[in-house]
């Protein structure tokens, strides 16, 4: 039968937009022409990608199999999977895994929900719409370094803005919370920074997606007597489902790759309580010069993220009901 994969099994996200195949699907020359065209479109970008990204990934994996010495003149010692087994016995590795998972579990849903909410609010004729879009996007365009230092300052225990609001101004809390001095409050502060900085990003994407939902569909549902929420659920949400999937995958990847904010706000401290995978990797590689171990940590991270992403893509792939 046909050699190529069916429309829905290509790992595509969300709906199979069209299940119709060209009538002449069994003709090889046409398929060959199609493949050739595809390769031509792919070639420039993919070759660049392969050279700059894939090849270094291979090298990095190779490094993870060695007790690697960074000076070109000194020999590196092949140790196979020792770095990986060392990882499994490293309590700080597990702790950083938990911290990273926490960060991701908090920031990803928050960014999706809030970003979507704001996008919906902005997806209508409104005064000052462009201004709002820009305002919400401002945190996204500011450098991580500057914002991390700023937030570290805002979360200072005695006299920081956050505690001032919570304790002195609104009396929500009865004492000054030592945000950055303990594990979970510090992770919460870091997560708040992540959410604050990321909302604009998902908002923009959702906005672009919502703009693409044909107004006729929304209007048709309105004529049918559905209220705003039901219209949203029945029309907009399914229509942007692939985009939601995309945003989720990207935010998960970003969540796992959190680095600068942790590095500058707590540097993994106090006492390695708030280490995340990348800060721990950075210390191993660049402070302790153990690149083999650092690479192994990175690859473990990659594998975890990959598995998670594929799972998410599969979950989102159920065919949609709307047509």
């Amino acid at each position: 039968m046909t050699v190529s994969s069916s429309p829905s099994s290509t790992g595509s996200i969300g709906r199979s937009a069209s299940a119709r195949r060209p009538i002449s699907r069994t003709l090889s020359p046409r398929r060959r022409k199609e493949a050739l065209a595809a390769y031509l479109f792919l070639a420039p970008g993919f070759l660049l990608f392969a050279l700059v990204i894939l090849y270094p990934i291979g090298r990095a994996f190779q490094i993870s199999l060695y007790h690697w010495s960074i000076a070109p003149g000194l020999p590196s010692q092949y140790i196979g999977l020792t770095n990986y087994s060392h990882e499994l016995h490293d309590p700080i590795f597990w702790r950083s895994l938990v911290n990273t998972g926490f960060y991701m579990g908090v920031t990803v849903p928050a960014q999706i929900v809030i970003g979507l909410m704001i996008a919906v609010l902005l997806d209508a004729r409104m005064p000052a719409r462009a201004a709002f879009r820009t305002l919400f996007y401002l945190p996204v365009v500011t450098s991580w370094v500057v914002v991390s230092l700023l937030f570290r300052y805002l979360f200072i225990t005695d006299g920081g803005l956050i505690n001032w609001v919570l304790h002195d101004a609104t009396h929500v809390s009865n004492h000054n919370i030592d945000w950055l001095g303990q594990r979970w409050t510090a992770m919460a502060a870091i997560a708040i920074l992540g959410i604050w900085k990321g909302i604009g990003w998902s908002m923009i994407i959702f906005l672009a997606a919502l703009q693409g939902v044909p107004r006729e569909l929304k209007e048709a549902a309105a004529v049918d007597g559905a209220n705003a929420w039901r219209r949203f659920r029945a029309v907009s949400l399914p229509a942007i489902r692939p985009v939601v999937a995309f945003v989720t995958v990207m935010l998960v990847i970003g969540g796992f790759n959190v680095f600068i904010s942790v590095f500058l706000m707590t540097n993994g401290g106090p006492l390695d309580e708030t280490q995340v995978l990348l800060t721990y990797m950075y210390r191993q590689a660049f402070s302790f010069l153990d690149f083999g171990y650092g690479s192994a940590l990175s690859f473990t991270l990659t594998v975890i993220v990959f598995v998670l992403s594929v799972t998410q893509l599969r979950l989102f792939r159920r065919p949609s009901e709307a047509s």
Partner: protein
Amino acid sequence: MVGGNVRRTRAIVGGRLTLLTAGAIVMIVPFAYMVVTSFKQNALVLEIPPQFIPHHPTTANYHGAWSSNHFSRYFVNSLVVAVCTTVFAVLLSSMMAFAFARFRFPGRRLLFGLLLIGLMVPTMMLLIPQFLLARQLGALDSLWGLVFFYTAMNLALNTFLLRSFFQDIPRELEEAMVVDGAGPWTRYRRLILPLSRPALATVGIFSFLASWDEYVWALTVINDPNRRTLPIAITLFQGQHSTSWGLVFAASLIAIVPVIAIFVAFQRQFVSGITSGALKA
């Protein structure tokens, strides 16, 4: 419209406005603090508790930041690199996304999977292998080298995003063109690209921002102070023992301006109605 509907619409709009304003205020507070501090004199320390009103506001920090140590040159360097990267990244990734979204060919799943893996690998870890590669290619200490690497680094994300948008464009329109005898490049240029303007604008903004803000790689490969990019200039205001916060914030705010300008310029692409006409259900 009926009178009651008008009142309800106004109430809805009012409600939305309130929510948005409240949200925007929360977003803005840290910024407000940055802006205020950038107008403070000699802010070597951030005061506790935070002062939102500077005692003697001054624009000295902005003058200082802009005129310090080649800052304007770093600004131009970053601009050049970011613009070039955006152009190439959008072009190459839209071509790749088109191929992934519209064609069937052997290896499609594999290649896309490789692209995804490129997304998931922490870039920190690739620093040294990429540095060795850059050295072999002679791409060190060069702005074009930066463009080369930045474009590559942006391809995976952009292709991923564009592919999902391209998949949403109904095939009927394209098939009509095929019947008319249009080849793939024509379809790409005349149909897909114009129809996905919001997505292209989004990807353009992302590429520009990624390149504009990129710090680690630029720090690693660029040694010639004449070729430095902006993020390094900002970080250089942080000393070993103390940081000139006024300068850092002033410099950061200067750095935000172009991105906001690009963003505002591209915002017009997010106009609804352009797409709804063409995409009949």
